[in-house]
């Protein structure tokens, strides 16, 4: 039966349907400062390092840039010294689901896309890229919130996904006076993108992300003396754990953020983080609404 095959909305889609075609490229001899500028300006989490002959030799991610800051590398150090490589590749016609699975098994955040033959890389696939597709297909689903607004959906709202079902129920916090070095230790120790900064009484004040840290690197701030409160962005964008996932996703996209902090009952009581990666990993194949309605592409 066909329904058994289409147990997941991403079935039938290929990497090429979801990938981004703009790849930010630098050369191994470019300085660290150049990579920081690119991540800020192009709003990407990593840059590809390739040769003049367009051969991909490595990747420099925000994590690598943050580690360079922590280790005290000069901003003019060539990227060669910190790049990780070569990049993990996939084919544009590979099933999207397979690509996602391979990202998950290898614990990597992006795949570069290379067609067969002597062609250069032509795209990059990261979790947030899939969110748009999910949005498209979930909206078609008669149980989506859009459907509800249009009055076409069934009255079966217990099955709607809530933030708490998808979020990472772990929260790393730092005090406002902790140094940037300490914040970086927390981030790399827990493999996170941002920490919540709280005041002396435990109230959330703001957020320090990898992006804020590498901007601090660029501005020459000493990570061993500057405090988290000096560079944090705030107040943190937050939602309640019982909010609808679809609506929370919309808030994240409208505000152009990658993550939202999740509280229980009161904003002071933070319990987790919801990132676009969480939302993409928890793709609609496992969405209850989707499983029961078995929508087809």
């Amino acid at each position: 039966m066909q329904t058994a095959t289409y147990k997941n909305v991403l079935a039938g889609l290929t990497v090429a349907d979801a990938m981004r075609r703009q790849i930010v490229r630098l050369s191994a001899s470019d300085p660290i400062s150049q990579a920081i500028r690119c991540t800020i300006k192009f709003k990407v989490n990593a840059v590809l390092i390739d040769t003049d002959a367009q051969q991909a030799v490595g990747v420099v991610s925000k994590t690598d840039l943050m580690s360079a800051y922590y280790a005290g590398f000069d901003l003019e150090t060539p990227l060669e010294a910190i790049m990780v490589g070569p990049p993990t590749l996939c084919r544009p016609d590979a099933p999207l689901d397979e690509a996602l699975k391979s990202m998950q098994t290898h614990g990597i955040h992006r795949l570069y896309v290379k067609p067969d033959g002597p062609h250069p890389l032509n795209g990059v696939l990261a979790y947030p890229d899939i969110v748009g597709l999910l949005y498209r297909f979930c909206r078609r689903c008669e149980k989506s919130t859009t459907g509800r607004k249009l009055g076409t959906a069934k009255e079966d709202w217990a099955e709607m996904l809530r933030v708490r079902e998808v979020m990472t129920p772990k929260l790393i916090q730092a005090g406002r006076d902790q140094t940037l070095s300490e914040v970086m230790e927390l981030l790399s120790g827990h493999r996170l993108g941002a920490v919540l900064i709280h005041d002396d009484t435990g109230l959330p004040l703001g957020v320090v992300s990898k992006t804020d840290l590498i901007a601090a690197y660029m501005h020459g701030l000493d990570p061993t003396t500057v405090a988290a409160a000096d560079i944090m962005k705030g107040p943190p964008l937050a939602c309640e754990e019982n909010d609808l996932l679809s609506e929370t996703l919309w808030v994240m996209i409208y505000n152009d953020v990658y993550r939202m902090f999740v509280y229980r009952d009161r904003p002071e009581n933070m319990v987790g983080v919801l990132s676009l990666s969480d939302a993409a990993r928890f793709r609609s194949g496992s969405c209850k609404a989707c499983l029961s309605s078995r929508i087809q592409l």
Partner: protein
Amino acid sequence: MPETAAEVMDTDFPTLRPDTTVQEAARILQQLNDKPGPRVFGLMVTDNENRLVGMFSIYDLLLLARPKHMHIYGEMTDIDFSGLLAKVGRSIRGVLVGDVMSTNLITVTPETHILMIVDLMIKKHVRRIPVLEEGKIVGIVYLSRVFRRLLDHILSE
């Protein structure tokens, strides 16, 4: 006439510093464009010793303004995005020019032939090129000036 950069370059050029905010840069760009003369869509960025360290242009600003989830917006046709432009304006005004300026620059000397500049503008997709003499900035060539000079020659007898 020698037909070089020296003839078409502007020698009265404001510059930005890497620690100038995007808001301040926007104010300078707006003031420049309120005055008669060529439209200015990009400025040179210099350090404390007036050495050229980058260019800050319209394209850098457009990239900075573009939301990182832009590719998803196309899917979200059922959602009202009004007010987003104002929100973007507010969120980028505090960014420093030095964080987003372009640093892989192409420069010429006052002796560079105008057709060489035409070639560079075509190949490198740039609309303005700083003119340096022994490492010191002496002017900037705008595409519009090159264009006007070309028109003169097309129309001359």
